[in-house]
């Protein structure tokens, strides 16, 4: 875990801080609600919650512009909300309903929005890395200045195809930011037990790819690093690697008892490093938001999440005819 930098006085407006706070809180509350719905049997199968990692996607969304693409693994709810996808459509996909982004046919791990440039939602660990490089290849081929954020975890960072993608991305100067979300556990295997070299971002040096380690619990640090990476890519100097040191509070999936780490470790992280608390503190100490302002945001977020949950329960299951559609186009 990267050492926490002293808070100092960030060069950031109150509006921006409120925006990040709101976006991170939306993800947190959405995921908590998803966990509840899972417990009620309304969400099935695998469900991987993003709680604790919110600063990564919100910070990078703040560093991107319209047209930039995102692709990630199966822990994808936060990424979708950060791109501005509708919480109703995401939640209804979790419940497998017609109103979901994939009409209920993809589920928690497989959602997409071409409109928001979100390309999934992939269930095979590491596969999204060359796929993301391919999205960047298309942008470079077409001659636009879009950048693709390709997210993967510390577990995927050991997959061979990640390095095949690194090599070609650097060989062809693809505008792709490889974002390693190092939450320190690949399911139940800590990075210490799986990776000989602890600094995953440094592996890009073998291909001449620039990169850095970032405090992924600090949305402002994430944004600053993201801006640097994006600028390099837009200048034709991609790719770029950002290793986000982060932490997931929940298990790998809903069915994970998380016996591979202590309660104390999780508790310590929540108390000392929480990305949302951190921004709340900046908002209050900086005089950007009163307690009432924060309460109003909480209330608004709660309403959005409740609405999404209601929608996801009310939306009907897909018509049985949908079994046979979308196999070919």
């Amino acid at each position, binding site marked *: 875990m990267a050492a926490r930098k002293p808070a100092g006085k960030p060069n950031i407006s109150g509006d921006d801080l409120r925006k990040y706070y709101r976006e991170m809180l939306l993800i947190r509350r959405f995921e908590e609600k998803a966990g509840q719905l899972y417990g009620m049997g309304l969400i099935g199968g695998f469900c991987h919650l993003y709680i604790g990692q919110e600063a990564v996607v919100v910070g990078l969304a703040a560093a991107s512009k319209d047209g930039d693409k995102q692709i990630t693994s199966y822990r994808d709810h936060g990424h979708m909300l950060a791109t501005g996808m509708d919480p109703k459509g995401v939640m209804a996909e979790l419940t497998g309903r017609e109103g979901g982004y994939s009409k209920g*046919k993809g589920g928690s791990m497989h959602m997409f929005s071409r409109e928001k440039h979100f*390309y999934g939602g992939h269930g095979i660990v590491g596969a999204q890395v060359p796929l993301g490089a*391919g999205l960047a*290849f298309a942008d470079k081929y077409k001659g636009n200045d879009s950048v693709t954020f390709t997210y993967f975890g510390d577990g995927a960072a050991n997959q061979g195809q990640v390095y*095949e993608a690194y090599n070609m991305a650097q060989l062809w100067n693809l505008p792709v930011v490889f974002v390693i979300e190092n939450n320190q556990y690949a399911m139940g295997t800590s990075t210490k037990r799986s990776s000989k070299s602890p600094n995953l971002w440094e592996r890009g040096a073998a291909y001449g790819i620039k990169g850095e380690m970032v405090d992924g619990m600090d949305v402002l640090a994430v944004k600053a690093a993201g801006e640097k990476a994006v600028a390099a890519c837009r200048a034709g100097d991609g790719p770029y690697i950002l290793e986000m040191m982060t932490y997931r509070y929940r298990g790998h999936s809903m069915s994970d008892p998380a016996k591979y780490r202590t309660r104390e470790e999780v508790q310590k992280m929540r108390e000392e490093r929480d990305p949302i608390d951190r921004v709340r503190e900046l908002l209050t100490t900086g005089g950007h938001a009163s307690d009432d302002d924060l309460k109003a945001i909480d209330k608004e977020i709660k309403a959005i999440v409740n609405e999404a949950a209601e929608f996801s329960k009310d939306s009907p299951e897909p018509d049985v005819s949908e079994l046979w559609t*979308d*196999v*070919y186009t």
Partner: protein
Amino acid sequence: MYIREGGYAMATEILMPALSPTMEEGTLAKWLVKEGDTVSAGDILAEIETDKATMEFEAVDEGTVGKLLVAEGTEGVKVNTPIAVLLEEGESADDIGKAAKKAQPEAASADAGAEAAPEPQANGASEATAPAVAAIRAAEPPKPDWPEGTPMKSMTVREALREAMAEEMRADDTVFLMGEEVGEYQGAYKISQGLLDEFGARRVVDTPITEAGFTGIGVGAAWGGLRPIVEFMTFNFSMQAIDHLINSAAKTLYMSGGQMPCPIVFRGPNGAAARVAAQHSQCYAAWYSHIPGLKVVMPYSAADAKGLLKSAIRDPNPVVFLENEILYGRSFDVPQLEDFTVPIGKARIARTGTDVTLVSFGIGMTYALEAAEKLAENGIEAEVIDLRTIRPMDTETILNSVRKTNRLVTIEEGFPQSSVGNFITSVVMEQAFDYLDAPVINLCGKDVPMPYAANLEKLALVTTAEVIEAVKKVTYR
């Protein structure tokens, strides 16, 4: 061994070399020595043009070039044909005759081992060229894929594939080719020869040897709005990337509720070539045809290769396009039309008949057509269906034929268990059971990894003799 010793103190014949696993003949492009020249081992004697490349041919012995037997520029020089005579010290040109007469073909000893094979062909995979082409021309396809009177041009499958790619790349800037050695090397099998010159490195992209990586990049590029053609040097190497074909390319349209089409072609040689052993000799038709979301095409003729590849490139779905190295060099008539395409999912009746239905695809058509010709000599008229597309399969054409002939034999090179023939059989049993007068026979490659030894390889492949035997069985003759 390209050098044949005529005997003690006699001239040595230099034979036309086989410079690739599938080479049967080549062009003697250029002599770099002349009669009377002294050469030592390692000196370049000639340039020989194969179907894949122009290669330099070296001397392995020292001596004097006594006679050049084949003039430069000669095309179609068969492998093992004497092309020059090398004289050792003290020999004269008078010894040349003795050498030529005494020499026996090198291949003779290799062939001896194959005599146990039930099929007397020298090479079941590659010697049926002439009869197969003849059969195609003799057949009367009820519905050709082009208008009557269309001018035809003979071209190889290789040229047809290249034309298809070039035409589609000219028509659509989003079409590009990527793969190992597709650019500067001009294609490992020369399919992409000349494309780099015409389209440049932006659109003809040489990749490192990283199938999983570049296939994933191809699929991502398709989602990003391009139409990639991903070449596998052989489909055996697609095993490194099969996750991206199936989990990424084939399933995402469905998983996205229809939002994410993936217009991509995966193409390259598939199936057994010749003498390249188990890891390079496997047919993936049945494998990929198992997957909803993929289309699987496997052409036999040059016209189909061209027309189907153009359709595959335009198709909004991922298409697995299975070629065959042995077929690359075979010539067929191709219609000279401005924009000739063949629809995916339509079988072709290559030969009409009434007594038995033979269904095959790809190189299997060679055996099916050759068997049909031989059966006709014995009064059995076989209807031969070239499936062309394995998925979606044109089962209607098969069923209609079986309802007429009441007998069915399928022919393919893949392994027997869960074969394409097995699937066809299940369809016929479910939908035309009452029409069958005999159990269906599925002819496949043998249920063993491909052996290297020439005699065993012949035994492992399906043969024309096996087709004839199977037809006699289902017709009770």
